[in-house]
């Protein structure tokens, strides 16, 4: 198993350099005017970034307000007793709530939890698995749909949150199984 993982790690070091060199090289072989193509494609970078701004502002400021208001702690206190029967400790609940909302906030929370519970604690392990196995759903929605100006997201949010919840539950259970 370790050799497989080493191989994967190795590949991940090489992928970007290989793309940077390989695409233009193969393009030359195919007689593509590589420099011209690159510039035409790259021109879009700025427009895409600018298109994302309103969507990102909308999501980030609302989430920042929510965090600053202390509503999150109240929500954690409220949900704690409800989730305890299914084996979900109240200590990792803030992580489960904050993870889909903000990437930097949840990273700070991991640091916080390491200071409070110690590196070896089961709560830090659960929080780390949560952090590693899900994405900042609302950020991804803002960036991907913002880039193409899609405002009506239909079932994107419920689907993303369902996936997040399943990952959170599985994180708690798998850590408990392995280290509990």
């Amino acid at each position, binding site marked *: 198993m370790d050799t497989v*993982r080493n191989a994967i*790690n190795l590949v*991940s070091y090489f*992928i*970007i350099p290989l*793309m940077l060199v390989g695409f233009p090289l193969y*393009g030359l072989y195919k007689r593509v005017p590589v420099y011209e*193509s690159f510039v035409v*494609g790259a*021109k*879009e*970078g*700025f427009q*895409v*970034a600018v298109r994302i*701004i309103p969507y*990102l*502002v*909308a999501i*980030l*400021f*609302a*989430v*920042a*307000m929510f965090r*600053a*208001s202390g*509503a999150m702690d109240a929500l954690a206190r409220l949900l704690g007793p409800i989730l305890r029967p299914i084996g979900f400790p109240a200590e990792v609940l803030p992580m489960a709530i904050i993870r889909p909302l903000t990437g930097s906030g949840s990273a700070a929370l*991991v*640091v916080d939890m390491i200071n409070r519970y110690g590196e070896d604690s089961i709560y830090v*392990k659960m929080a780390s*698995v949560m952090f*590693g*196995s*899900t*994405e900042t759903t609302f950020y991804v*929605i803002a*960036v*991907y*749909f913002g*880039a*193409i*100006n*899609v*405002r009506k*997201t*239909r*079932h*994107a*949010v419920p*689907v*993303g949150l*369902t*996936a*997040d919840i*399943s*990952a959170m539950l*599985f*994180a708690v259970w798998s*850590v408990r199984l392995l280290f509990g």
Partner: protein
Amino acid sequence: MLNYIWAGLIVTSFLFALGYDARDIAGDRYRNGRPLPVALAFTETYDSATRRVPVEIRIDPRQFATFYGTEEKPAASYPGYLLQTREGTQLRFEAGAKLPEPLATIAKVSSSRDQELQGRLEGFSPLAAAQARDTMFPVAAGVVFEPVRFVKLNAIAAAALDFAKTAAGIALGLVGVLALFLGLLKIAEDAGIVHALVKLVRPVLRPLFPEIPPDHPALGLIALNLAANFFGLGNAATPFGIKAMEELQTLNQSKDTATNSMVMLLAMNTAAVQIVPPVLLLALLGLQINRLIFPIIGSTVLSLIVAITAARLFGRLRVFRDSDPNRNPPAPAAAPEA
């Protein structure tokens, strides 16, 4: 859905901020307008003609606890200075001192230009101070801070403004990386790499994205996006994903509404299947991460399965089926009247 969640975040934060502030006011948490007893020890001879006199501020832990009704403990002493102003003598705590709550909060609200906690000195006798030659004999006084009100309300407003700026910064910070990878992708398209990739991944991805025509470049870009995610290359994954979304948008009948394929791609991205540990966790936990990699991969694979299933099932729900641009294309724009 997003409309309600978004509005919900804003409204709940306002209500909670208001609630916390009301509680602070009801309990007079900051003891607005009342003097906190302190003892001032002079390291230099006090002279009321001098504008600025350095002083050692001592707060008795017991007095502090009864005054604020808290269990927080102040440090043995704080460096500070007295400042003669037209309004009277001011006491300032040197910036960067580790203040206990609620002083830390008060410091945020009523600090000087140099971020020092400041307050008006009361019951201070210059005569006694001038005679106190030694730090052994501190002079008692009281300090009144600026009244503190609506801390949370101010905090949410500040957070909103702050993060609006951050959001624009994040988006603009993407310009360079986006340009780099979108440029590379253009070469890949022109050289036929994307097209070759489409043929390669069609058997796997087509069942997940039945709306995409079999030879469409979107499939190839989706494959690149998923591969970049898989190897933990967040920098590359985002431009690939955005390009894939743009290709899906060319197939979309109504440009402001997400298609089922878009939701599916998004779902696969939020599930974040990644086989190398996230850089941040590696930095924080070091080698311990090796013991966590299997639960991480396990949860992420499981949540991917859930995401795909949910994208499929929710897409069949009445509400979302009716808004499907492929099922109910928008009426063509009415011809301009003659």
